[in-house]
């Protein structure tokens, strides 16, 4: 034990006496470990975020978009009768249609017309079951109901971001102007993860859209369909149910598939980063071997005198191996710390929950130690083989 302490002391003394060189050698393991830890940590944090998103969205929501039929020059729509047909499918529990309106300038408060003309707020004619279908609650008030629909009342629900921008307070009686026409705000919809654009949108009934904005018929351009069982099968059936073999069609997709695909892309990118990190570790190892080999030549006099003082070849080899070990340990610890810092920064910036395995951190730090020790073997052996008489230049 005492011998081990002495060896460590000699190794540290050798390293600290040449601080800049030691720091430069250490850069390899630091960068390698940091890159790998960051790649894995960001990947895991991102996966955790996606998983949470997937769970929030549910895996049973189908999005149906109208696709172009033969009506050139018109926006594709799904006829209202088709919506009723989709609702009658056995596994479907909720359906809502939406249609985005155009050429409407929304002015949430006085004096903001120029800004909202430049950055228009989406205005959406919506079915009445949107919150139930998307499983998104209202943070204030209520959603559009049958009375609003039948009476054509000028009422609107706004997205949460718009409400924040608007300075809307819960329960407050306010109006929002659409091309100068005032609409009473009756509720605020919570964040819609699947459709972030809805967070700054204004929702109105199809009746209002037809009465005030010249919409010809209550046909949506998009359907949201909730089918808790046989989701994929329902998604495959919907285009046929919508078009009945006719020219007007629809595309159905399960949005969770998109998120899965995104996850796969992230995985590939992270694999690439891990490979680059591994490469940095290998290059770092070569750097250690290279610089330490040069160091052995530079320190040949020290090696010679230590041999003359009674240090055996084995002790000399261990001294240099311990120097490599110390570089690996310090490089591994610093690299793991830097990597963890990068993961924290990225997770913080992207709003992820930081996921980092302590076992993984220790594991990669140990890989750095392994690389450093393997890299140190050659210079250590070289140091041990030096003949003291040649290095001391007697006489």
């Amino acid at each position: 034990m005492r011998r081990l302490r002495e060896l460590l002391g000699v190794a540290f003394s050798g390293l600290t006496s040449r601080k800049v060189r030691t720091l430069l050698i250490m850069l390899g393991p630091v960068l390698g470990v940091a890159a790998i830890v960051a790649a894995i940590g960001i990947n895991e944090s991102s996966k955790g975020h996606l998983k949470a998103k997937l769970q929030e969205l549910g895996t049973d929501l189908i999005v149906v978009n109208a696709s172009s039929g033969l009506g050139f020059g018109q926006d594709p729509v799904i006829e209202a009768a088709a919506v009723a047909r989709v609702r009658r499918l056995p596994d479907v529990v909720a359906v809502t249609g939406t249609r985005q309106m155009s050429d409407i300038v929304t002015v949430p408060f006085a004096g903001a017309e120029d800004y909202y003309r430049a950055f228009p707020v989406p205005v959406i004619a919506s079915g009445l079951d949107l919150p139930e279908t998307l499983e998104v609650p209202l943070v204030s008030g209520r959603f559009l109901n049958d009375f609003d629909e039948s009476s054509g009342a000028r009422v609107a629900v706004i997205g949460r971001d718009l409400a924040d921008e608007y300075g809307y307070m819960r329960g407050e009686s306010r109006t929002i102007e659409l091309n100068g026409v005032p609409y009473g705000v009756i509720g605020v919809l919570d964040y819609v993860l699947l459709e972030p654009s809805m967070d700054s949108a204004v929702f109105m009934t199809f009746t209002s859209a037809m009465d005030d904005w010249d919409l010809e018929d209550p046909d949506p351009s998009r359907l949201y369909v909730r089918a808790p069982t046989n989701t994929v099968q329902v998604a495959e059936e919907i285009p046929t149910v919508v078009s009945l073999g006719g020219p007007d069609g629809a595309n159905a997709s399960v949005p969770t598939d998109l998120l899965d695909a995104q996850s796969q892309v992230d995985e590939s990118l992270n694999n690439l980063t891990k490979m680059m990190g591994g490469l940095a570790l290998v290059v770092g190892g070569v750097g250690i071997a290279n610089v330490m080999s040069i160091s052995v030549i530079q320190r040949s006099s020290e090696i010679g005198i230590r041999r003359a003082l009674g240090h055996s070849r084995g002790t000399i080899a261990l001294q240099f191996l311990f120097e490599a070990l110390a570089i690996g340990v310090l490089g591994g610890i610093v690299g793991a710390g830097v990597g963890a810092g990068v993961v924290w920064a990225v997770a913080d910036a992207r709003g992820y929950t930081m996921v980092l395995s302590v076992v993984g951190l220790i594991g990669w730090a140990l890989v750095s130690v392994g690389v450093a020790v393997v890299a140190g073997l050659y210079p250590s052996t070289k140091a041990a083989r030096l003949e003291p008489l040649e290095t001391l230049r007697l006489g």
Partner: protein
Amino acid sequence: MTETVLALEGVSRVYGEEVQVRALDEVTLDIRAGEFLSIVGPSGSGKSTLLGLLGVLDLPTSGIVRVRGTDATQLSDAERSRLRGEAIGFVFQQFHLIPHLTATGNVEAALLYRGLSARERRGRALSALEQVGLGARHDHRPVQMSGGEQQRVAIARAIATEPSVVLADEPTGALDSHNAENVLQVFGDLQSPERAICIVTHDLHVAHAARRKISMLDGKIVADEILAST
């Protein structure tokens, strides 16, 4: 009869394989405890080879090297290193101090791996530095010392392990005459009945500071004289 601390028995050292150079030829020599001897000879006479073999830094091509009666040629590297560390102290012409260590650190380097505690190591190192008159400079690095002081640190390092023999290779070769005298004085003071001192030199003034003078030529001992006290 005093103990023989170092002995060469018919030792030869041949360098090279295709072109062979016989640096040392059938040399037999005893060094006893308490002796102060010098080895002299012109360049190429085999002095340094002899010193390397006496210090067990090299092995002979033939013959036996005994350190305190043990045949060093039959030992493993680790055993030979241990024997060298315990029995022999070295002083070199170029001092060979480790630049990043203080004077104490350099002396302590000779005391490593001997089962001593850090406190014991430091105590013995300071004591050795006191012996050569450098107690006050113990925390200085080699670069902060003169050549003579560096050589005295090297001598402290050589005696810190209380070896049976101190082998010095041209110890005054890199010093001015004033510092050379000081160093010779230190060697004189180090003489004791238990410790032999052997100086390899080409400087006859240094050689005559010793009691016994061995002259070499062409790898052989050509004279082994006892000198009158000066």
